[in-house]
């Protein structure tokens, strides 16, 4: 990353101003021309550095309001097969293998979304039936304390 690129990332923190030419102000902040900023953003958008350039919505009205972190105890030699099967489920948005720790025996994590707890449970049961992995748990959210876009190149440890 060049200093100019880091400058652009920092200048876009908090989002674009709501005006006719919203890229002008971030370009000024970053100390680059608007053309340079636009070209950089397009390049990042094309190569996947930017996953999505768009609005963050406060309310999701898609109907998927409940989410559960589904954790699975999968034998090491079946991780690959299970990971693929779980990832194929529409209800699963994220699927990762992680290390087991102390008495927590689960090593495969799935974020499961549903319209209700029952929806999440059904999605998990289908994955379980399909794969034969029966040792799993669904950890539901009791409280959302924070959900924010990451602050990249944070210079201080605390916000």
């Amino acid at each position, binding site marked *: 990353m060049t200093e100019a690129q880091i400058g652009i*990332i920092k200048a*876009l923190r*908090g*989002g*674009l101003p*709501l*005006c006719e*030419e*919203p*890229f002008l102000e971030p370009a000024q902040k970053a100390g680059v021309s608007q053309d340079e900023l*636009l070209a950089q*953003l397009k390049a990042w*958008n094309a*190569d996947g*550095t*930017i*996953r*999505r*350039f*768009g*609005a*963050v*919505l*406060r*309310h999701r009205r898609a109907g998927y309001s409940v989410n559960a*972190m589904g954790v699975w105890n999968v034998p090491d030699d079946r991780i690959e097969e299970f*990971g693929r099967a*779980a*990832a194929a489920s529409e209800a699963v*948005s*994220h*699927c*990762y*293998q*992680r*290390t087991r*720790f*102390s008495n*927590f025996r689960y090593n495969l994590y799935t974020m499961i979304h549903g319209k209700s707890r029952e929806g999440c449970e059904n999605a998990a049961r289908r994955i379980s039936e399909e794969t034969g992995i029966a040792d799993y*748990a669904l*950890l*539901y*959210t*009791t*409280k*959302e*304390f*924070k*959900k*924010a*876009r*990451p*602050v*990249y*190149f*944070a210079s*201080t*440890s*605390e*916000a």
Partner: protein
Amino acid sequence: MPNVPGMLPDLTAPTPPGILVKRRIAKVLLVDDLDRRLLEIVQGDFPIAERPYRVLGECLGISERNALDRVRALANSGIIREIGPSFDARRLEHVTTLVAAKVPADRLDEAANSISAFAQVTHNYGRDHEYNLWFTLVCRDAEELERTLEEIKTKTGISDIHELPAERTFKLRVNLGF
């Protein structure tokens, strides 16, 4: 009824109860069909252009002014939180991890709030499990990650805390809620 950006439907006209309820919902969401289409585009693919609202207007057959006014209204009503880039942390050479912590129930809110205060913490959820607090960290490098975790331990006094970086990613769907 004409499409006036950010304006409410006329709620003063007498209407049967069922319709009134629907209008009240419309009032809460402040969204009409055009807004819905606009939201869809703005959410997934905001134009990276000198005059993005002109582009949006052209897509929807409305004026640049109208597109901007509608987005402003959606932002003012709280539906749009911000418009900007969602980066792939790894491509920015940042490191990410999930952390599981066991916090005494009566200290959960306090500990969670002090953890949320760290800029590196992006998601922080209470969960119904013995490990009752789960959060994600995005840091510039491994050293910052370790330092942040140490600071969190010191600040909260939580010792039963586990760093769980992804060993392998099977799926990562772009989250439109974000």
